[in-house]
């Protein structure tokens, strides 16, 4: 097998669900060893579908992908041996103890019992769960269950780890803790990590390379800094009572660009908001138009997302609502 610079490569990966739902519409990826690669996209963007294809739980409609040279369809068994997966939904069995879950999965990989035990102890310690291995999973909190998922996904020393929405439904503190564990996993275990999220802060703080994905397509790829510097400007967003006012504001001269997210809302891109604001105030007063809501955005991934997709990242909840509700309920306990 020839050595490729990339640990994971895909070519035109497509998934169309029954009923003609085009969840993923041609994704090309090149991921280097040792990176944390982040997919950022809103609900229904196709993140989970992409992860499910790469982790061999569903088959692509067309296109190919290789992980360390193994084809995800033809060599799926070999792929499964080298990847670790933490799906969006919880997978551990509540009726078993933490350690029993880990040992069961270890046996899937033919890991001898003694070795599995040692590995389980190390990993439980890594995510601060040492005292809970012998407790039933049904007694775990949501954050603990997510950490146990990390352990289960890592038990066989995978080379590539897929994390689908690793902090979905967790509170802010628990989420920050989770980020620390993910960084630790990369640094201490040297695993290449591919994660998805619809939290901007998450990919911003974790990922070396970010792909923004929407409607099943990758819209842009780069480091966080690259994406932000592409923006070249600040955003001033104002909501008005009427469409006419919004249009009038949009005619303001010293702008780079204008768009209308809603009929009564205008989004102006300017070179530097700090200098432009006084002028804009004057313009508003002179034209006798009154803002209802006024906001200024400095470059952030939020902005990047808006720029490339034309919408905010947090929108309606989609996906398998029933499963999600069930998972949320389990996470909140």
């Amino acid at each position, binding site marked *: 097998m020839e050595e490729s610079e990339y640990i994971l490569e895909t070519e035109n990966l497509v998934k169309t669900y029954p009923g003609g739902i085009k969840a993923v519409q041609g994704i090309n990826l090149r991921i280097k060893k040792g990176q944390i690669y982040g997919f950022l996209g809103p609900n229904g963007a196709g993140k989970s579908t992409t992860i499910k294809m790469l982790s*061999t*739980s569903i088959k692509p409609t067309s296109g190919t992908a290789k992980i360390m040279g193994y084809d995800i369809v033809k060599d799926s068994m070999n792929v499964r041996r080298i990847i670790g997966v933490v799906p969006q*939904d919880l997978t*551990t069995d*509540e*009726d078993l103890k933490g350690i*029993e879950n880990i040992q069961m999965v270890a046996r899937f990989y033919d890991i001898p019992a003694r070795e599995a035990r040692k590995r389980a102890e190390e990993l439980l310690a890594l995510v601060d769960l040492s005292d809970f291995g012998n407790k039933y999973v049904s007694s775990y909190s949501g954050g603990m269950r997510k950490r146990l998922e990390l352990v289960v996904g890592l038990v066989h020393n995978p080379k590539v780890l897929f994390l689908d929405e690793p902090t979905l439904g967790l509170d802010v503190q628990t989420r920050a803790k989770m980020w620390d564990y993910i960084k630790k996993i990369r640094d201490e275990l040297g695993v290449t990590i591919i994660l998805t999220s619809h939290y901007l802060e998450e990919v911003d703080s974790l990922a070396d390379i970010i792909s923004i994905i929407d409607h099943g397509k990758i819209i842009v790829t780069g480091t966080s800094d690259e994406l932000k510097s592409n923006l070249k400007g600040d955003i001033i967003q104002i909501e008005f009572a009427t469409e006419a006012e919004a249009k009038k504001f949009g005619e303001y001269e010293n702008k780079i660009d204008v768009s209308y997210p809603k009929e009564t809302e205008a989004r102006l891109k300017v070179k530097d908001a700090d200098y432009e604001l006084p002028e804009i105030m004057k313009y508003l007063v002179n034209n006798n138009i009154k803002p209802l809501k006024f906001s200024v955005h400095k470059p952030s991934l939020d902005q990047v997302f808006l720029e490339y997709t034309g919408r905010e990242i947090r929108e309606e909840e989609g996906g398998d609502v029933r499963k999600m509700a*069930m998972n949320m309920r389990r996470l909140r306990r």
Partner: protein
Amino acid sequence: MSGLIPLTVRELRKWYRNPVFFIVGLLQPIFWIALFGSAFDITKLFSGIPKGAAVLPFGNAPNYITFIVGGILTTTSLFTALFSGTSLIFDRRLGNLGRFLVSPIRRSSIVFSKIVSTTIRILVQAVILVGAALLIPNGLKLVHGISAPDIFIIAAALIMIAFSFSSLFSIIAIRLKKQETIFGIINLINLPLIFASYALFPAALMASWLANVAKYNPVSWSSEAIRTVILNGNLSPSQFHSVMLDLLYLFLLSVFMIILTIVLSEKEIRD
């Protein structure tokens, strides 16, 4: 088959640790025996039949329990087999299946872990059921004793019928997302399966069309095989022949179900 053992261990752990499952599983066969077996008093039926009649509908059964124990063993296995289907659906809904599908195990071992564990549950229930039937007053009477080959025949019939029913419900559940569907299916099929069979009534008491249909019912094959062994000591050549034929049919059915399960689960199982 990689994955089969750890997955089966998981199933069995979940079973014996769940007190409700366990107790219901034990009580159900006891109820069957106590209610069904002693509700009918066939001596009353015998008293209406002239002495020395050519055909006795219940053969040489000393009482009704002894007559239907094979039928009840078969029927309870039909109900218990339902678990292999519902638990597959639960695994899908609770996300456990997601883990199995990304692991390097054969997909059919996911389904076979349900089938094997359910078959084990059915066998444990069978032992308890037979024990209960022997203990209750006027219960199961082994007039001719019971030999090792008898036990072998009973176990073989039971394992094969349990295996076939469990496979049936697992196959149904391979792509189902809602357990309502599988409950609907069992409601639809279990009445005809039980009543169009020799599980509870002898062929002699049936309308001839029903008796003919019942010949092709797997419930009859296992009920009759077990019954023949229990009611008779040394089997006559014709009895031996019919027991072997029943076992052969059950064997062919099991092989067919195994192949179907492998083919369907390798290809069709998904999250």
